[in-house]
């Protein structure tokens, strides 16, 4: 009984408060998302990633850094070592489990750096217009004209290898699409009545952009960020594979594939497991991103 009243409260056409309207919209989006089985699968994978990263110490059976060089080098998968062991005698399963933390670290940091930068540049360009818009968008286009991995490579080459520098390089190459989206959204609301009303009330441009335009752009930027997560993970893994990301002995998945490359023809499992992990997590983000896009913007759905 209380279940139905809750739903009525959420789905009411005349919400009594701002938070009720917001919750109602969130609930509707969630229902659309929950109808999409693939999106739920994606969500499950991402939650799985969070759980594995959170409880890595419990889930890992052995140390991810120190191996048994004498007894356990390059063993095939078995009951004791589920994914086998690598050339340092380390348990690959434990390394993959701990590697989830590094992946999460990279993804979250890139999103936290790149999304606000793109949001700020896009909304300022869209609201200010004129030469500010022209200059900012030209810079955005220049960054978009670069192939992303190559630009990240060049930046890491100058900054020096390491996981922090990889994060910086990926963030530098990630913000332009967010700026484009935020600008497009800003242009659609810029001349709307509510913005004019706020301006007449004497709000400063800073306040208008920060309090009234940015929130309008957030949901589309979030969708785009989710869709980009897979790309970020793949770029980070690519940098790791080329030896420019996380440095040994850190159990970064891309770097693990690189170390398994030398004996892949005979001991394929060393490279197989971390690659599978990258694939699964990217797939999860792609499925969730597609679902979010359809749920938050039903018009674009079904394509």
């Amino acid at each position, binding site marked *: 009984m209380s279940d139905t009243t809750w739903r009525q409260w959420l789905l009411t056409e005349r919400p009594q408060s701002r938070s009720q309207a917001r919750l109602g919209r969130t609930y509707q989006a969630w229902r659309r998302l929950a109808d999409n089985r693939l999106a739920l699968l994606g969500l499950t994978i991402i939650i799985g990633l969070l759980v594995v990263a959170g409880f890595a110490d419990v889930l890992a059976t052995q140390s991810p850094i120190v191996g048994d060089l004498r007894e356990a080098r390059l063993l095939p998968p078995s009951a004791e070592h589920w994914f086998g062991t690598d050339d340092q005698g380390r348990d690959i399963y434990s390394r993959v489990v701990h590697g989830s933390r590094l992946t999460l670290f990279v993804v979250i940091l890139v999103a936290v750096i790149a999304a606000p930068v793109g949001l700020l540049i896009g909304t300022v360009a869209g609201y200010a217009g004129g030469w500010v818009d022209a200059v900012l968008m030209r810079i955005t286009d220049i960054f978009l004209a670069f192939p992303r991995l190559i630009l990240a490579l060049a930046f890491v080459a100058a900054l020096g290898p390491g996981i922090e520098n990889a994060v910086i390089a990926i963030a530098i190459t990630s913000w332009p699409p967010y700026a484009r989206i935020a600008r497009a959204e800003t242009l659609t609301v810029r001349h709307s009545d509510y913005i004019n009303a706020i301006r007449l009330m004497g709000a400063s441009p800073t306040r208008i952009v920060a309090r009234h335009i940015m929130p309008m752009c957030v949901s589309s930027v979030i969708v785009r960020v989710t869709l980009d997560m897979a790309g970020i993970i793949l770029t980070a893994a*690519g940098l790791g594979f080329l030896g420019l990301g996380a440095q040994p002995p850190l159990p970064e998945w891309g770097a693990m594939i690189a170390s398994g490359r030398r004996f892949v023809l005979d001991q394929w499992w060393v490279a197989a497991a971390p690659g599978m992990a990258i694939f699964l997590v990217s797939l999860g983000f792609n499925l969730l991103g597609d679902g979010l896009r359809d749920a938050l913007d039903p018009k674009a759905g079904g394509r």
Partner: protein
Amino acid sequence: MAQTAVDPQGGRSGTRRILPVLASIARFVVIVALTLLGLLAVTFFIGRVIPVDPVLAIVGDRAPEHVIERTREELGLNRPIYEQFVIYVGKVLQGDFGTSVLTANPVMTDIRRVFPATLELATLGTLIGSLIGIPLGVFAAVRRGGLLDQIVRIIGLVGYSVPIFWLGLMALVVFYARLGWVAGPGRIDIVYEYTLSPVTGILLLDTAMQGQWDAFWNALSHLILPASLLGYFSLAYISRMTRSFMLNELSQEYVVAARAKGLSEARIIWRHALRNALVPLVTVIALSYAGLLEGSVLTETVFAWPGLGLYITNSLQNADMNAVLGGTVVIGAVFIGLNLLSDLLYGLLDPRTRRS
């Protein structure tokens, strides 16, 4: 044309038509120049501004004082930064990227030597992707929700999610080590390496032109796996976009009209709808080609393919910044060029874009 002949003011309407075209071409050129300049600004920034001292990176920290001083002078580092940038742009425009520390050749000579290998790989990859991807996308759109549609969806999802270098390694394990269907890493067996005299640098063409069919088949068996791998990624993108464009075309009124006229379904799909869908597809193919040039960095590393991508990664690992930045500028310029080409082709193929 017939209309202008009848029109007494033909000359005026002619100039009226030409002027906007000239204006848009001028705008186009300015944008291209600005983008290229921006590209160089970024690489200049990476090469000269980020490193604490570019001289140290070249001579090492044990060099005597006068060597450091002379290198600084030679690099022009004592001049103001904007002057350095102008000099840098001038040099790049003449094809001078400096000398590679690793190979001791001018970087441009190196790039000219390795570029054909990348071109060969990316071109074959795009061919595979388009020739399979377009029909697949068409069938998926025609039988929406059917088996092929699901397959296209899965191909796309996997293509967007799988790390290309890992898939390459696993393909090597299966098709080279286990099944022995293809040759392993490298471009050609070492036996043939010295009997070949390069003409175009594209081995398939060179060997075929010289009638060395042994070498041709050997080169092909080396090429086919990395090219199929790149082809898969291009296929994932192209088939998905073809499907979406075809769905759009098939819902247009002219399709209804063609059906009402009694045209066969095959004719409607392949002759009418696909023809219109091909216009935006040109852009997609150009973009995917550019994407393959980028993907080649990782693929070439996995397959020890001696192209631009492997050149860049080798230089990276040896901190050879001139070579890295030279390769970056070349790939960036090709990227921009392909984008422009697709824009131009779009305008050429779709008359509607010309009017506005």
